[in-house]
């Protein structure tokens, strides 16, 4: 089964600036339409199963990093993100994941904060900074 994609996007905005997007939006809707129509007639290649677990975990780990960054700072959010994401692998072991997380966090702190001087707090406001 071929999953048709319908990319119909909003075509809002004012008269002038809408010109280009409207044309593009129109074409995209047309393509989406053709794709849907075609999916009824053409037998496409089957789509392999989605790897749900890693997908959710990886996305969640990245979002978690974003959420924690302001409040907790670089060090805690990095460690958490790495542990969480490492868990999505079938080869996950605490024994390797924890030292890796700690080591890479230290490395990132040295390179990004100390060496490159990026304005990222290693510990955030929740720790009294």
């Amino acid at each position, binding site marked *: 089964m071929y*999953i048709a*994609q319908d*990319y119909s*996007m*909003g075509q*809002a*905005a*004012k008269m*002038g*600036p*809408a*010109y*280009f*997007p409207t044309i*593009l*939006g129109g074409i*995209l809707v047309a*393509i989406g339409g*053709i*794709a849907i129509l*075609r999916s009824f007639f053409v037998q496409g*290649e089957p*789509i*392999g199963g*989605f*790897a749900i677990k*890693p*997908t959710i975990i*990886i*996305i969640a*780990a*990245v*979002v978690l*990093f*974003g*959420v924690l*960054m*302001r409040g907790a700072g*670089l060090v805690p959010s*990095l460690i958490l*993100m*790495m542990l969480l*994401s*490492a868990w*999505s*692998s*079938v*080869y996950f072991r605490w024994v*390797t*994941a924890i030292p*890796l*997380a700690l080591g*890479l*966090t230290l490395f*990132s702190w040295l390179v*990004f904060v100390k060496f*490159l001087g*990026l*304005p*990222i707090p290693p510990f955030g406001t929740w720790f009294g900074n």
Partner: protein
Amino acid sequence: MEIFTNLGIGLETALSLNNLLYCFIGVLLGTAVGVLPGLGPVATIAMLLPATFTLPPTSALIMLAGIYYGAQYGGSTTAILVNLPGESSSVVTAIDGYKMAQQGRAGKALATAAIGSFFAGTVATVLLALFAPPLAEVALKFGPAEYFSLMVLGLVASVVLASGSLLNAIGMVILGLLLGLVGTDVNSGVPRYTFDLPQLADGLNFVVVAMGMFGLGEIIRNLEDERTRTVMAKKVEGLMLTAKEFKSVLGPILRGTALGSVLGILPGGGAMLSSFSAYSLEKKMSPNSAQFGHGAIEGVAAPESANNAGAQTSFIPMLTLGIPSNPVMALMIGAMIIQGIQPGPAVMTEQPGLFWGLIVSMWIGNLFLIVLNLPMIGLWVRMIMVPYHLLFPCILVFCAIGVFSLNNSEFDVYIMALFGLFGYICAKIGAEAAPMLLGFIIGPMMEEYLRRALLLSRSDPMVFLQRPISASMLILSALAIIVVSMPALSKKREEAFKEE
């Protein structure tokens, strides 16, 4: 000869101690990251891009170019030793290269790849120096109508040359164009597609999109099927080629270079198409074509020279016209814009140091590659052996910090996560991310030129057809679309991509 004065300027810039150092760092980093399985040049450049923000423009571009061919070369090393091509252009290298490694000839395969790449890089650099200036001169005469048509042609070409469904590719380009328009409209100041989010007022950042699609999306895809990889030849020995072997790779290298140089200029083609066609050409021409697929040294030499030549010549449209021919060039243009340089024909006249310095540094970078890689191969082998379940959290960290530090905003991190998810879904349904990224970069430029052209012609759309250059480019695009959508040919096209 003007070219020598120009190259002199270039040498002066490229040989300054700082730029030499950045070129070296770029090549080294590029190789190191490119060697890691599952990381192609696009992801590598996107990941390392933030590291160049603080540098002066020339050094930043030199370093990025170094990362590019470093990553390309690193990808071949992985393809040969692990049969796990990090990027599409080394897929063909893996066929014969891995076989050679299994037969204990890994050293020779690596040496061939290095020599082929170096030779191709040298030739392509000369071509770049020869052809860029006249092309830029022509481009300076281009009006908005010509630019618009040129962009249409470029996008059409990238669709035609993309593998997989044509419809999907067109859809991805258009989607990319639309995504490029997110943010405040330049002319009227009206926010478009921002969902009233103030963070989107400046538009989506292309680094964020690229990292999501190519970085995160790839990680998830690799996690889907975690095979254990066996590394061939823990110790790589016997780098030297015999005189006979050298003779047999000479032809493939020359032909690969020629083919790659031409195809690299084409939009959408670049390295991947070059290596595929060079391999099939060699297979047809070689006296021992039966050996192909079973460890033929020619099968490594041809695609490797072709993809390096293509990688190099794809800089020509980028530097002279300001139009990216592949996602890597799209990233380069993004980097130039961040550095405050408007890509286009004016770069050469206004910033001769940057332009020629970059060209000369490419050759120096290629020299570094060959000097660096053959002796350091042991180190690369050790890097390849890092298991993926330890590797991907590290990639994640670099993506996350890189994106966060762009604007110090967690919002970008969420957007990256979103595009990561989207990238994974696209990969699943067979929609390629590359055309989308091209559209994304070109979108705002295209709209701008369209508007300017229509403004000058007082809203008469015929302007695109009345100007000869513009008209011929549009006709060419239309032809390309018609040709590939004809059933007979579209089958052929599918075969061409399926081969091997």
